[in-house]
């Protein structure tokens, strides 16, 4: 085998270790975990997973997370598409400045926004709603989505737009039936990054929710403070948060290289 694949294999094995360890612990009881350390568990139990799937305190966390992530992705895509089109095709007063300003929002430390956001959403009675988290994440995801889509849109020659207009297409028809199919992969990449940032973000998700919309990340930290530490349960919960991510990567794997190649992460 070529030397370089050996290095790659070694790297992959090393980085999978912590994740494998989670899996290992999630399939054992607490007593078993505390008693001994085994590389391959012998007494496998699915109790931890069963708890998570049956106890609404747990699985609601996943559902909440998925809800606001999907909401966020939809909001971002729907609003960013026209904006990206405009930035790519039109020049208007202040366009470069607005574009740059959008990007700078990504550079602010999240901690800065904690309190203001809390007060802001309180005022509108939006605390503990999914839409609050979805909107809050827009602060970081929207600029990114606009940036990524703008890159893909600029890759489509303007002649296509012009031809469609000459052919008599009204703008909405052109946009939905001609243009969007052309940038399918760009939309996929943008959706991926939206998902990625929204799913992993913890600070806003925890600050803006209390019970009804609490994400799984917050539920897990709750486990830490109850009587003792339920390691098995924690490990199972953690492992389950990895699964959606893996699925999403698998589905967009062919577009990932293209999306990163535009350098617009």
């Amino acid at each position: 085998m070529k030397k370089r694949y050996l290095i790659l294999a070694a790297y992959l094995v090393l980085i999978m270790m912590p994740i494998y360890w989670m899996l290992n612990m999630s399939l054992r009881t607490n007593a078993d975990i505390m008693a001994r350390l085994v590389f391959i568990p012998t007494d496998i139990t699915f109790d931890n997973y069963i708890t998570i799937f049956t106890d609404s305190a747990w699985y609601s966390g996943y559902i909440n997370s998925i809800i606001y992530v999907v909401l966020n992705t939809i909001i971002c895509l729907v609003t960013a598409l026209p904006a990206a089109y405009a930035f790519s095709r039109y020049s208007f007063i202040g366009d470069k400045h607005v574009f740059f300003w959008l990007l700078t929002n990504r550079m602010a430390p999240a901690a800065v926004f904690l309190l203001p956001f809390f007060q802001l959403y309180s005022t509108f009675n939006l605390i503990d709603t999914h839409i609050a988290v979805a909107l809050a994440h827009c602060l970081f995801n929207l600029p990114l989505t606009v940036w990524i889509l703008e890159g893909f849109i600029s890759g489509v020659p303007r002649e296509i737009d012009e031809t469609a207009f000459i052919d008599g297409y009204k703008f909405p028809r052109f946009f939905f039936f001609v243009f969007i199919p052309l940038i399918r992969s760009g939309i996929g990449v943008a959706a991926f990054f939206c998902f990625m940032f929204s799913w992993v973000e913890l600070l806003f998700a925890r600050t803006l929710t209390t019970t009804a919309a609490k994400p799984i990340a917050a539920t897990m930290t709750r486990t830490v403070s109850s009587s003792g530490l339920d390691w098995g349960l924690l490990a199972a919960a953690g492992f389950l948060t990895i699964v959606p991510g893996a699925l999403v990567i698998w589905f967009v794997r062919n577009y990932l290289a293209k999306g990163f190649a535009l350098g617009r992460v």
Partner: protein
Amino acid sequence: MKKWQDNKGWLFILPVFIIVAFSAIIPLMTVVNYSIQDIFGPGQRIFVGTEWFKETLTDPRLHEALWRQLLFSGLVLLIEMPLGIAIALTMPTKKGLGSSVCLVLIALPLLIPWNVIGTIWIIFTRPDIGLMGALINNMGITFDHTASGLHAWITLMLMEVWHWTPLVILLAYAGLRSIPEAYYQAARIDGASAWAIFKYIQLPKMRGVLTIALLLRFMDSFLIYAEPFVLTGGGPGNATTFLSIYLVKIAVGQFDLGPAGAFSLIYFLIVLLFCYLFYQVLLNVGKGESS
């Protein structure tokens, strides 16, 4: 491609503009508001001008946090950039199941919620229930990141590299994939060695993506909060209290909104400045090579 001059572009960007402005400007105003006032309680505030700024800038604990932060970000770049490029070079180039599985495994750490990452590493490094912790302790070293500042840093760096190197790998990989085959063919005909190919073809052609990687890693590591907080809470003591953690401590822990506001603004400006500098340097390195 010349753009169409058309101010109806504003209509298109309006939704985005409103949402982001709503999310960004109002907090910004709030922060500026706090930074120039002293707040004793609801409704009790007095204007203090630049006093918070002065106090923040001379706060010795802020300086310490800043140095720790710079060290952290420096180490991050020093380790992640070369490692990321090296792994990207080893990845398979042909499309197929192998390269897809590889891609998923490599990208996986990027999609784990940040607090889960902290949890994974707490468990992994514990001597009683963690694989790594047990292995190290078996070798005779008492490894405890809750007791030793050095151990905390080591665990933190391991976690950080584990978490974010994939970003550099993916970017570098994308850059490598975009190099036309003809360059490698010409290099073969010229009799170039693997090192020469790397130095004269691959590295220059990856300059764009590597700039992005550098900027992003610097920015994100400079702003980092969740992972170190979950892992060490900023400790032991202040050993791993970086800037964001310090900021949250002041704002939420001590409820010193004034200094917090001032600090936030300064923090933001520091990041902006560094990014601008980095960007200019890398741009000029590029220009210098072609002048």
